[in-house]
């Protein structure tokens, strides 16, 4: 039996779909989520209301949401950045980890220096570590044409092992010598903590402001600079890029490096702004890198929109923490996020294709 519906490729993508699709995706996810909730005997309206309350509706709620959103904004930008040149970087996770390692090292080692200097150094170090780690993937791709999805994914595992080694497997500089029994990271001295700002009634972490500024700059870079133009031509047709004298390999490496730097700065915000320690287990549990891919997909790979999508996803995560308890399973928020990913992918399909109702009879008379 043929399905009565049929996908038809769109020749052009109407602009308005750019914001309609993400909204519809999230709406669709909430609807699907409602079904799940009903099936488990819960009142979806009540649950959603509580999520909104504890995710967005108060000063503390917002603060927690921004804390959760900041790393996601960076990993989302990371995934969006390579997409613009037609590469898929799954390695945001590992690049985030090494960024955190670098930033923690600097934050501890520079104890006593002025906060602004430390802060800048942590950002730079995070960016440097992440970008070097990602550039590795770029070099492999450019020189040996290895599949970037596989190499970047493998590097995630290696970075995870590195985290474990630094804290649990060795007496490294980052391990707290005072931690007995269960080893933990060395806490950052107070002077290395990143500031938060009270703007109106909101409390905004420095890292989040940084994400907005960087997101806007990256978007500008892709839309308005030679570099961005070259990246988009390479994504469209590598042959045309070569023909017009663009250095495609070098560009692939630079874009990977930029993408990695974004994730690396994300790692630095995690250490500097929030945990104030390189938390080997916590980082791996959070899975920021992978959630970032969802954020990027929902933002339709626009690095600036990714920052705002991160607020929504971050809010969900935050609400999940706040509401976790006997009547609110911890898996619920994960399920919702999974549904959002699912509908985001469906939304992406809708951007490229449209649904048509099939005329099932083979030769029907035209009614006209």
């Amino acid at each position: 039996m043929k399905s009565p519906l049929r996908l038809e490729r769109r020749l052009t993508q109407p602009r308005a779909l750019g914001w309609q699709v993400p909204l519809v995706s999230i709406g669709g996810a909430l609807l699907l989520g409602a079904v799940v909730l009903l099936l488990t005997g819960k009142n979806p309206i009540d649950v959603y209301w509580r999520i909104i309350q504890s995710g967005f509706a108060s000063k503390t709620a917002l603060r927690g949401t921004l804390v959760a959103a900041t790393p996601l904004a960076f990993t989302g930008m990371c995934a969006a950045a390579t997409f613009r040149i037609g590469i898929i970087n799954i390695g945001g996770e590992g690049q985030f980890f090494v960024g955190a390692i670098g930033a923690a090292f600097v934050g501890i080692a520079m104890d006593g220096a002025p906060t602004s200097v430390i802060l800048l150094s942590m950002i730079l170090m995070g960016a440097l570590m992440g970008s070097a780690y990602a550039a590795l993937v770029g070099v492999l791709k450019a020189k040996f044409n290895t599949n970037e999805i596989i190499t970047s994914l493998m590097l995630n595992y290696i970075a995870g092992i590195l985290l474990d080694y630094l804290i649990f497997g060795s007496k490294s500089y980052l391990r707290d010598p005072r931690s007995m029994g269960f080893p933990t990271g060395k806490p950052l001295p107070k002077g290395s903590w990143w500031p938060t700002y009270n703007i109106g009634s909101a409390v905004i972490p420095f890292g989040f402001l940084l994400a907005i500024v960087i997101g806007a700059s990256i978007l500008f870079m892709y839309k308005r600079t030679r570099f961005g133009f070259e990246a988009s031509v390479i994504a469209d047709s590598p042959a045309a890029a070569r023909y017009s004298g663009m250095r495609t390999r070098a560009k692939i490496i630079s874009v990977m490096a930029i993408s990695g730097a974004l994730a690396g700065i994300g790692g630095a915000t995690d250490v500097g702004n929030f945990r104030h320690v390189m938390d080997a287990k916590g980082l791996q549990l959070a899975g920021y890198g992978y959630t970032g891919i969802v954020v990027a997909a929902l933002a339709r790979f626009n690095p600036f929109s990714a920052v705002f999508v991160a607020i929504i996803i971050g809010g969900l995560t935050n609400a999940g923490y706040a509401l976790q308890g006997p009547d609110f399973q911890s898996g619920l928020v994960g399920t919702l996020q999974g549904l959002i990913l699912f509908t985001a992918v469906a939304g992406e399909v809708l951007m490229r294709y449209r649904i048509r109702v099939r005329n099932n009879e083979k030769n029907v008379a035209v009614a006209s």
Partner: protein
Amino acid sequence: MSGNIAVKMSGIVKKFPGVVANDGVEFEAKVGEVHALLGENGAGKSTLSNVLTGLYRPDEGSIELHGEHVTFSSPRDALNAGIGMVHQHFRLVPSFTVAENIVLGEDDGGVFLNTADVVARVEELSLRYGLAVDPRARVWQLSVGEQQRVEILKVLYRGAKVLILDEPTAVLTPQEADVLFTTLRAMVAEGRTIIFISHKLDEVMAVSDRVTVLRGGKTVGTIDTAGSSTRELARLMVGRDVVFDRVQRKNPAKPEQHVLVTVGLCANDDRDNKALNDVSLSVGAGEIVGVAGVSGNGQRELAEVLGGMRATSAGSFHVGGVEVTAGRVRRSIAAGIAHVPEDRLHTGLAASHSVEDNLVLKSYRNNPISIRSILNRKAIRSNAETMVQRYDVKTPDTETPVRLLSGGNVQKVLLAREFSAGPKVLVAASPTRGLDVGAIETVRERLVAAADDGVGILLISEDLEELMSLSDRILVMYEGRIVGNLSTQEATRESLGLLMGGATVGGHTA
């Protein structure tokens, strides 16, 4: 020929944002005829075929197949009803065999492929229609002509009674085209219907029974080929007389004043086989030097070396007496070499980018298109507006992606960019392939005008007529070497044909 109507399309309207591609087209093809569809670039031929094969839905109008109303919602529907299309760009899987490609996408086949059965049927079909191709060969091993035969076999295999061929000869050598025509005649003799799209008027005259001419999305008329002439067809197409006499030169060529010299160039092709073997040639200021040869004899590689896209293994090339570093596109651009590649839509242009972006594909690094690495959108827009007007590009606006333009307008965008860069040397590979007579005339005039301005032109083409009417001198390439250097007086179809086939005659240095 029977008088039965196979296909009747009435009042077909198909609109795209900004253009009406089909504006009330009337079309009718009989059983057992080759019916040519003729029209300028952008006249709506491909759109009409896509409507007939269910790829597009018409906004208005109706289609009758053997007297019955039909609507198709996909090419598969159309194929089930007996209408198949051979697209200009093949849709084959290179790593699959011919037989596998042919049954690919059949939905009523079982899970297992009965290869022996398929092979036998394919062999039977290819014998019957003179479509020589080995069903067990893998597609990547086939020449372009053979791949086209596979596409035709694919639709025949599914039992198509009406076949649409969109510019099938654009990719064929003249010999291959002749073979194709025999096949087409064999098919109509069996009562099939062929709808044949082409810009080459002599082909249309030779192979088709009737011709329908489209202009600006409307049917101009349908006439019998017998009793018509290429001249009449051209007039119907463009609405005025087109003359293809030798275009008059304002300034004579200065062959001794070399703008391009190559010395012993050697280069490999993509599979690392030797493609260019000791190629030495020169092009004078204002000289149009034709390069003849059966495709695949090193012409493409020669163009790519000069354009900087391909590294050399020996030899050098010089523009205005200065050696150009090989294998560097930007050096070639800076030296003043413009390059019109064979593959327009994927090499010469970034297909999903807009017309305006494509027009600055090579100049985006220069002031005022970009200033300190920031793009100047205003300058890009106004550059595009000037070019679109000057080169008569038909496009809804400058933001339209080039892949949505008709074939001829795609080429105009490319030529506009390359001509306007003020080159010293222009390397053009098949610049008029797929263009309508009016557009060919324009391109030829532009080439000649550039030569009049002193640009040295290397014109690579398989169209001997074109080479003979434009060139000051014709080189012949065979297996990566230059095997002939003929003045236009010496060059005849016969002498060129012999040299292209590898016979050795006369001088070697160019």
